[in-house]
């Protein structure tokens, strides 16, 4: 039992933060809202150069062959930066799914191109029916009952679903499953699907941690410079205690998310339960931080001009991707209250 990240994980996180600070400042996200495509090839390549996109891909296919534990801190950073790109769906969900296919001949070329930052992959299934960045995705992995299908973009029809978080490019995808598009089925297909859902939830949870942390940072920064009644508002207990409460929620969400990453990396039996737990507490921490940060900012936080809504909107959006809180609460409750099992 050793519940700590290794030095290389921390260094990798710092590298990712450094790159994101450069290529994904709030102004870049706002540009996406206003006029740019959500997928930026330059940003995507920068992430590939860090090794993030192929991190989970086997070395034979050009990846790093590492696991989710090595990735989770970096994903947190993508939340902190409100990265628009489909990093979770491509690098955390699609890569292991492709790597898990029996036919390496299909998977490996894609894996190599993902690792190189050449392609985006869209993923659609229950409970994540809408495909993020389907407009930019060259490949779509779509689930139909116990079957996994792989389709090039040309073979699906995508209807854009405009969202409050304008950097969330979601699409309703219409497609026709066929023997030609099928890449996995039966027990194998179900297993891949379940793993994809757990990974998607983990990815959203990790990003929510980053969003929550950033919201707290922004609020602290504002509270230290804004004065009312002749003193910094951050010296008022009402402000201090609210932000302290936000920090408590974040503090106790983090290890739950990291445990889920470990469980998925090791394919432990409780991985589904733990992924749901992670998604719930991370969404709660982010929602609480959003409310707190807005209230601390006051009216200025309600303006378009101030960046705060970049993270508020992401907090709300991520809460419903890869399973809503309601869905995860139901799955978790079933696991925890299962009469056949003594809850650990």
């Amino acid at each position, binding site marked *: 039992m050793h519940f700590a990240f290794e030095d290389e994980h921390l260094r990798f996180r710092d590298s990712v933060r450094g790159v994101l600070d450069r290529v994904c400042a709030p102004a870049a996200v706002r540009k996406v809202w206003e006029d740019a495509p959500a997928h930026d090839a330059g940003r995507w390549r920068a992430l590939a150069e860090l090794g993030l996109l192929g991190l989970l891909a086997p070395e034979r296919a050009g990846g790093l062959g590492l696991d989710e534990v090595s990735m989770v801190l970096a994903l947190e950073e993508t939340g902190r930066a409100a990265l628009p790109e489909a990093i979770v769906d491509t690098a955390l969900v699609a890569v292991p799914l492709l790597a898990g296919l029996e036919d390496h001949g299909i998977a490996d070329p894609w894996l190599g191109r993902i690792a190189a930052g050449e392609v985006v992959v869209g993923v659609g299934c229950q409970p994540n029916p809408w495909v993020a960045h389907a407009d930019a995705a060259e490949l779509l992995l779509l689930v139909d009952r116990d079957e996994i299908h792989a389709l090039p973009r040309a073979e699906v029809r995508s209807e854009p679903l405009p969202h*409050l978080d304008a950097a969330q490019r979601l699409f309703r995808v219409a497609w026709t499953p066929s023997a030609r598009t099928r890449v996995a089925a039966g027990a194998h297909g179900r297993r891949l699907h379940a793993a994809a859902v757990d990974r998607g939830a983990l990815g959203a949870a990790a990003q929510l941690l980053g969003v929550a942390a950033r919201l707290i940072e922004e609020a602290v920064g504002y509270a230290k410079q804004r*004065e009312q009644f002749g003193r910094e508002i951050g010296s008022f207990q009402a402000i201090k205690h609210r932000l302290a409460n936000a920090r408590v929620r974040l503090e106790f969400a983090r290890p739950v998310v990291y445990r889920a990453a470990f469980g998925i990396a090791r394919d432990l039996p409780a991985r589904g339960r733990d992924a749901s737990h992670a998604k719930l507490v991370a969404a709660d921490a982010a929602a609480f931080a959003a409310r707190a940060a*807005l209230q601390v900012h006051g*009216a200025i936080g309600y303006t*378009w001009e101030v960046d705060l*809504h970049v993270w508020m909107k992401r907090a709300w959006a991520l809460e419903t991707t890869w399973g809503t809180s309601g869905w995860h609460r139901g799955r978790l409750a079933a696991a925890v209250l299962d009469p056949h099992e003594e809850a650990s």
Partner: protein
Amino acid sequence: MDLTFTPEQEAFRAEARAWLAAHVPRTPLPSMDTAEGFRRHREWERVLHDGGYAMVSWPVEYGGRGCNLIEWLIFEEEYWGAGAPGRVNQNGIFLLGPTLMEFGTPEQKARYLPKMARSEEVWAQGWSEPNAGSDMAAIRTSARLDGDHYVLNGQKTWCSRAAFADWIFCLVRTDPTSERHKGLSFILVPLDTPGVRVRPIPQLDGETGFAEVFFDEARVPRVHRLGEEHQGWKIAMATAGFERGLMLRSPARFQATARRLRRLWEARGADADPTLRDRVVRAWMDAEAYSLSTYATASRLIAGGSIGAEASLTKIFWSEMDVRMHETALALLGADAGLLPPVAPPEAAGWLDGFLFSLAGPIYAGTNEIQRNVIAERVLGLPRD
């Protein structure tokens, strides 16, 4: 105590209901924060006025129908129950209007109130400044007397409706040597005065519900001052009292929201998180409590009482209730919650906008932190900070 309505009250309710059924626009008006929506809302106010429903509780001479506050609440129930549009001149009819009736000269009442009732003149409010938000007494916008005009310099912010309104009411510093609450005056300013510049502030939803207003040697006739010179704080506190108290958010609005939430539960509840059922019931409970409390306040006011610091209790209650109701709705909508028109499903209509608007509730009209200070100090008698 009698919580039943009199036959006269029931008749008034029936009449209002019938009129609203015949006149409320079939489809929602565009947002009042757009030029077109503002115009349409102003037209609707004129329809209301011509029907005698613009401000039922005002005296007949000013365009009302002399109803008491209970009848006003009945009208509000029918109004929101009918799904009628938001009130574009809320700053006027609910805030400045009552203030004018209390503090205005007869000439001022005659000048402003009828045009307000017809929304021929729509009002913006000008409380806050960049460094005087929660700390309203830190106001620095100045008005120096020059002959029979005040000359205004400075900046107001978070001025709701200012983008398209005709007038703004402001609290400004008339005594340049004064500090804090002293030396302020309450002045009414036409927004087309030379030297007044309005810059809309886009909100996080992209709308421009409020604006900054800059004053650069703007000359305003002295007769536009409301109340005594340097006595503006007292008047502003009265206006703020209306804002926090009875008028700003009538209970009928929240009861209508609770009913919509129940319908959303009926549509979505079967598939939703079972914990949401309790939150739907909670919404009903809260809206009822708020309505009952408001009827009690109205009864007290009719009997000659007044609203004091208890208005702060009300502000906290409705603003937090509103957030909770909308959070519950979004949870019921699940992944549909964040979708924008036209792809959002029909039952999602209004909830996302309502949620974003509800988040402003604990901030505007005095943040809830300020209200809690007021309750602690003035209702409970705890010592000042």
